[in-house]
């Protein structure tokens, strides 16, 4: 397997060093940048598969980096490295098009899992494969088929809508706002969303009170594993 190019943009040298060490062992080709300008240059030159972006950069707001990137129709998966208590910025980053976030301090294992999910998601987007299959859950979007551990599951139209969104962006955190916008066109209430997710879990999870498929990102949104 060829090395996956990955770009780390963070102004803290110790963090970059730690990530380089950790990620190199996992088969990534690591590029580093300490500023947004440097990062954008490497991005254009090296076309990395994943971008790890710290939001607090010295020369430019990380949110603006995301906004500019997506404005250029650059779909490179972005994982935001955020500090604790920065929930607002986290949600903003996701709404602007970031794929995921990890909160500092984080373990390297957690980060690698997120990177792999983001890569998988990218492959899915590119391949256009409309079938999601993972750990007993099968969703075939072209046939509107949902099967859980081999049993067909009947979903209401809204439940299916939500599931379709989650499947299309499997592995990615979908904010409440994104989901509500997609399903109710901007109207609605988080409360409705939570009720539908609860119902979905009743139908799709083995232990609805200990969900393993549709995960809650508290205060942010949901993610399909």
């Amino acid at each position, binding site marked *: 397997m060829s090395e996956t190019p990955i770009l780390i943009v963070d102004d803290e040298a110790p963090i970059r060093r730690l990530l380089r060490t950790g990620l190199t062992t996992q088969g990534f080709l690591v590029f580093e940048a300490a500023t947004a300008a440097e990062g954008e240059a490497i991005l254009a030159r090296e076309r990395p598969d994943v971008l790890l972006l710290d939001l607090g950069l010295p020369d430019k707001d990380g949110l603006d980096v995301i906004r500019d990137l997506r404005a250029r129709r650059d779909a490179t998966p972005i994982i935001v490295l955020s500090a604790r208590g920065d929930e607002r910025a986290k949600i903003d980053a996701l709404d602007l098009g970031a794929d995921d976030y990890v909160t500092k301090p984080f373990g390297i294992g957690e980060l690698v899992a997120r990177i792999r999910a983001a890569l998988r998601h990218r492959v899915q987007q590119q391949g256009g494969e409309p079938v999601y299959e993972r750990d007993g859950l099968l969703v075939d979007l072209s046939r509107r088929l949902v099967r859980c551990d081999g049993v067909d599951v009947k979903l209401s139209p809204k439940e299916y809508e939500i599931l379709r969104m989650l499947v299309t962006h499997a592995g990615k955190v979908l904010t409440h706002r994104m989901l509500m916008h997609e399903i109710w066109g901007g109207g609605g209430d988080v*409360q*409705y969303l*939570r*009720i539908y997710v609860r119902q979905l879990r009743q139908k799709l999870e083995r232990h609805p009170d*200990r969900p393993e498929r549709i995960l809650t990102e*508290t205060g942010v949104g949901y993610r399909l594993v």
Partner: protein
Amino acid sequence: MSEQQPHGEPLPPPKPSARGRLRIFLGAAPGVGKTFEMLLTARALKAEGVDVVIGVVETHGRKETAALVEGFETIPLRSVPHGGQCLAEMDIDAILARRPQLVLVDELAHSNAPGSRHPKRYMDVEEILAAGIDVLTTLNIQHVESLNDVVARITRVRVREVVPDAMLDAADDIEIVDISPDDLIKRLADGKVYLPEQARRALERFFTRGNLTALRELALRRTAERVDDALLDHMRSHAIRGPWPAGERLLVCVTSDEASLGLVRYAKRAADRQRIPWIALHVESPRESARSETERDRVAEALRLAERLGGLAVSIPGDRIADDVLAFARERNVTQIVLGASRRSRVFELLNGSVANDVIRRAGLIGVSVIAGDQEVKAEDKHALRSAPRPDLGADWKAYGAAAVSVALATGFGLLVQPYVGLETIDLIFLVSVLAVAASHGLWPSLAASLGSSLCYNFFFIPPLHTFTITDPANVAAFAVFLIVALVVSQLAARVRGQVIAARSRARSTEALYEFSRKIAEADTLDDLLWAVAFQIASMLKLEVVLLMPENGSLTVRAAYPPDDELDAADLGAARWAFDRGRAAGRGADTLPGGKRLFMPLRTTKAVVAVAGLTRESPGTLLTPASMRLLGALLDQAAVAIERLDLSRHMEAARVEAETERLRSALLASLSHDLKTPLASILGAATTLKNYGALIDAPARDDLVDTIETEAGRMTRFVGNLLDLSRLEAGTIRLDRSAIDLADQVSSATARVGPALKQRPVDIDIPADIPFVMADALLLEHVLINLLENAAKYTAEGTRIAIAARRENGGVRLEIADEGAGIPEADLSRIFEKYYRAEDRDRRSAGAGLGLAICKGFMTAMGGDIFAANRAGGQGAVFTLVFPAALVVPPGEAEPAA
């Protein structure tokens, strides 16, 4: 002035020791050379190195004087615009700002231009002295208040600008500047005495040899009295036995007569000569209400003058003036009484008796002086504000109407019963009607009724009938007796009625005072108290009231009734002055009398705590002496109440402060422990790996790496808690509330804590019918994570943690129960207190002191609550999150729109 402080004119200044010294150059007349003398003295002091400035000195163009002014620093005069021209006045603010050691202030009796801070220059001087600056000043004897009318009598010129005697009494030094009358007249002839043009003619008549001699004598005597005082003080302070009169007092009776002011001044001089305290007494008779506003003002003015002159002013209710005066005099150990001579006609005195005669006859050992007195020839008195026509005129007509009706009824009834009874009975019927009128309408209507009755009696009943003549001598006697009895009955009944009214009004004010103290005792916050005070005073005295208290260095309106926060700059200035000096200022007071409101300080024994501003829409006198005294009592009570509240608040604040301080140091100690311990482990493990990594076998190496991971995790949580705590304390938590599914929250929190729970299974029991609750998802997750970690910390591996939700009282309760050792009973109430655990060093693990306090803070912020208990049956602690009914989202509303 309070009774306890009869000589209270010079109020204790803020810093008694820092008060400046006052030296007065006293002269008998203008032109004796006071200013010259003052400047010479100042030069000598300046040569000694004293920092001297000139506040104001009038050279009047005299070369000798002008030469002496040379070389002094002069504070420029302030120009005050007045009526199209500019008047130059001493700039008191500039002097206070310059803070010299000594300031020269010429012409102490000068009246300042309208709009100045004080109407009189001597008040400026008082303020300068209070600021700790010494003052040299000049004064002519005719300006001394108590000598004012004596001087007027001698010279036939009344001087309007007067300086209170207290000013002289308070002077540290009085220097008399004396030249012989002949020399003075010569100087005048030589043009060496400056006289203002418009007053020249008047003043030239003043400069006669006789006048000057008398004035000089007055000045010398006044100074000599002072010297006597100084000697006396010395003897007293050195415990020398002396022939000073002990316990004697002089009493002067103040009436609404115009001579009262002169009488008060006379009393002051007489008391001073004998060096005894004196009292000005006014007996408020039931007839008082019948007096005109002008007369009542005159009484008030005389009483105020007495206070200004250092006497004690007292007003008592009473009916028989002579008896009341004597009773009061005996009670107060008065040895001399001064009375004004009656101005009534001899005929009136024969009929009614004279107070003076009564007092003299019954005075016993008390000396009585009756002074004919001077009529105060004050032009402005004639134009003094007259109150509106007496409002009870209508009531009077009604009373007389009632008298007429009553007589008519008696006559009718008499005619009706006449055939059956004798003439004596008819008498009685008429007497009854007179009595009824007297009892219900007072003296004059009843006298009218007496007259009417006698006429009707004569006309209708005494033969010959239907004439006003009486033929039978027996009937003449009967008629005379009837008339006398009717008059006496009128008098007696009216007097009883008057006493009843007076007693009722006294009872009312006593009741009002009691009511007031009860009302303000109910207030337990300062705002409530202030509002109650404003409201009570406003309604009792029919005034508009504002209360100001110092806040961040400036006086601000804290309560007002009727609510009205608008104070203009002039009012605020007066309020400030009243607060700083502890004396009244503003409307009708000595200081800033032009203001809209009168400001009265609320004093306690320690300090001025607040200022009350009083006003009324109608012009004229704001407060009668009686209401002034009532106000004084009210303000005293209010001040004490404010001080009491303030005191308890301060004590509480101090207690909290001390407690916080103790906890803060406990936290600091714990912080350094909590941060250093994991850091030491991490650093130790890392350096071990770095230096000896090659020498250590794999399991030991893993162990070290585990240590680093665990300790770093501990620190992360601890730092996270510290962050939360600081956010809570800074109040920067922004709630983002939405309808929360507790089942979802609990499961995600459990998942997040996951590894830390290790071998402790979590049983979740959240029934499907538990409604959503309004909460901040992130804060609630923090709370749950903290509680789960807490449970993991205090329980053994393998024990279970149970999370259950249930509905209660319309709300929702979420319980997190563990199977640990539980919480000691004594700690249950304090477990959520900030830093609480931090005190208990041995049992604590990192960050434990903060987690529960944060839970409490977050739950409270969200409108919920949290409490701790021990399991009823077995072992273990139970933490319960309470979401009251208000936070519950009604299930009906939770149905999403399709």
